[in-house]
């Protein structure tokens, strides 16, 4: 499924308004972004800028918006087998084994492998071979998150969405998981869109970074990260880009004041 000729995700003039008690709040305004097939992009920004909202719309969990999202030229609305998402919590169903949980991502007719083979292959891909019969509560946070990544990839979607997937992990596990995520992405060659607070994570993993500003949420800046992989976090270019992005976000926060973020968070209630 992921070797289509032109698997481009195109978001055009996306706008979302939240009709709250205190009037209408523009959550997302004129979002315009393009992601090419097989690329890894990140969306970063201050809390409350709407990046999770944008992610949920792309995943199809939210269909109340204006504008359009197309994949391979086809209009998207609602969830579909072409997009999967990895949430911040692993969201594995506790009453099923890891193997069964990963199997939920499988769709009949995907890639001609039978379900068991696909599940086993993807568990191996994320380094969880042999854990098919374990239950989620027996796994550590990092392992459970890896299982949810396997679940998202098992039917080889065209778009892999990641909503702060490593946010709940400790710093050391997070760094290790970033490397593993990169390796998994390179092997699967799927399009990946990552939402994160961690600028370093974004720079380490992405080909392109979208910086979002808050209230209303819009794409403030688009940066290309053409560095070769694997990237060196302590290199000059890395540090320079990081400073640049931080400054962008700082500027945005200063421009609308710190009350902005809090207001936006209250309004969105995501």
């Amino acid at each position, binding site marked *: 499924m992921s070797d289509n000729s032109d698997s481009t995700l195109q978001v055009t003039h996306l706008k979302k308004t939240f009709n709250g008690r205190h009037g209408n709040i523009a959550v997302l305004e004129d979002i315009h972004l393009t992601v090419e097939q097989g690329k890894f992009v990140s969306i970063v920004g201050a809390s409350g800028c709407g990046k999770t909202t944008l992610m949920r719309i792309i*995943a199809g969990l939210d269909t109340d918006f204006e504008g359009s999202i197309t994949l391979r030229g086809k209009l998207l609305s609602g969830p*579909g087998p072409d997009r*999967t998402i990895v949430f911040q919590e692993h*969201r594995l*169903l506790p*009453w*099923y084994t890891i193997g069964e949980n990963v199997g939920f991502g499988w769709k009949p007719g995907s890639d001609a492998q039978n379900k068991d083979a696909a599940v086993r292959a993807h568990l191996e891909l994320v380094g969880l071979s042999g854990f098919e019969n374990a239950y*989620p*509560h027996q796994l*550590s946070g990092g392992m459970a998150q890896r299982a949810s990544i396997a679940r998202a990839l098992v039917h080889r979607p065209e778009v892999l969405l990641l909503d702060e997937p490593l946010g709940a992990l400790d710093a050391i596990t997070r760094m290790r998981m970033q490397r593993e995520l990169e390796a998994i992405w390179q092997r699967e060659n799927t399009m990946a869109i990552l939402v994160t607070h961690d600028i370093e994570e974004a720079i380490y993993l992405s080909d392109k970074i979208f910086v979002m500003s808050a209230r209303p949420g819009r794409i403030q800046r688009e940066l290309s990260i053409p560095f070769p992989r694997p990237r060196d976090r302590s290199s000059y270019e890395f540090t320079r880009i990081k400073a640049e992005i931080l400054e962008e976000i700082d500027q945005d926060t200063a421009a609308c004041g710190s009350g902005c973020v809090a207001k936006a968070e209250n309004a969105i209630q995501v």
Partner: protein
Amino acid sequence: MSTQRITAVIGRDVPDTHSTGWLRNITTALDRIARLSAGAVLPLIILAIWYWATQKQFVKPIFLPSPLAVLTAFQRMVVSEGFLRDLLTSLSVVVRGCFWGILLGLAVGIGAGGSHWVERMINPLLNALRQVPALAWFPLIALWIGIGDLAKEVVIAKSVFFPVFLNTLQGIRNVPPQYVEMAQVFGFTRTQMLRRVVFPAAAPTILVGIRFGAGLAWAMIVAAEMLSGRSGLGFLLEQSQDMLLTDHLFVVIVTIGVVGFVVDLVLRSIEHRLFRWKEDIVRR
């Protein structure tokens, strides 16, 4: 569980215990025996005090028969007074009443859980009905359908219905929305959502409601039989009191307690077996 397997499952190192092999097996077995018999300590102490008190004749036997007298009475009741028949009568009424109460509780609970409108429509009426204790309905029901097993079954069904209904409704409402969202993204159909997400998520709460209802039912049957029974354990209680057969009283009371305890134990072990996927709370 070997240390290797523990490490593999939880992904981090577990310190090895000091003893190994046969010594460890013995200490583990002793430990298990100790844990299981801890619960028997207090009852045994009470039994000893009871025996000693009756031996010393602190109280008249009519108020406190000796343990041996109770045992003898039990034997007599079983062999020549049809005790088992009364026990069976009570049990069968309870089982039938429970069955209907659980069935209706599940049905209405699922209906209300699935639809907010249904819930809004039936909640006020059900809440009002719930305030009236089941036993208070008994005279009216007995008047309508006669004093007999059916009236008792209806009253028991009523008292079982409410905890099951409430817990079913709560269980369904409390399904974590994160799981529902995840299932939506992964394209679960409505049937799959119900079978794989909603029902397993609600099951623990529902089972607690059933366990609670079963306990209520058992208490209810004794009361109902005391009110107007001609057989069953409650009736035996009344009769024993009338004839001042305190040893009989003790037998019935102990039996009621034991049966209730066993039923609860069975339900709890079913619960334990079904919900092994739940996070292990710190052991004992």
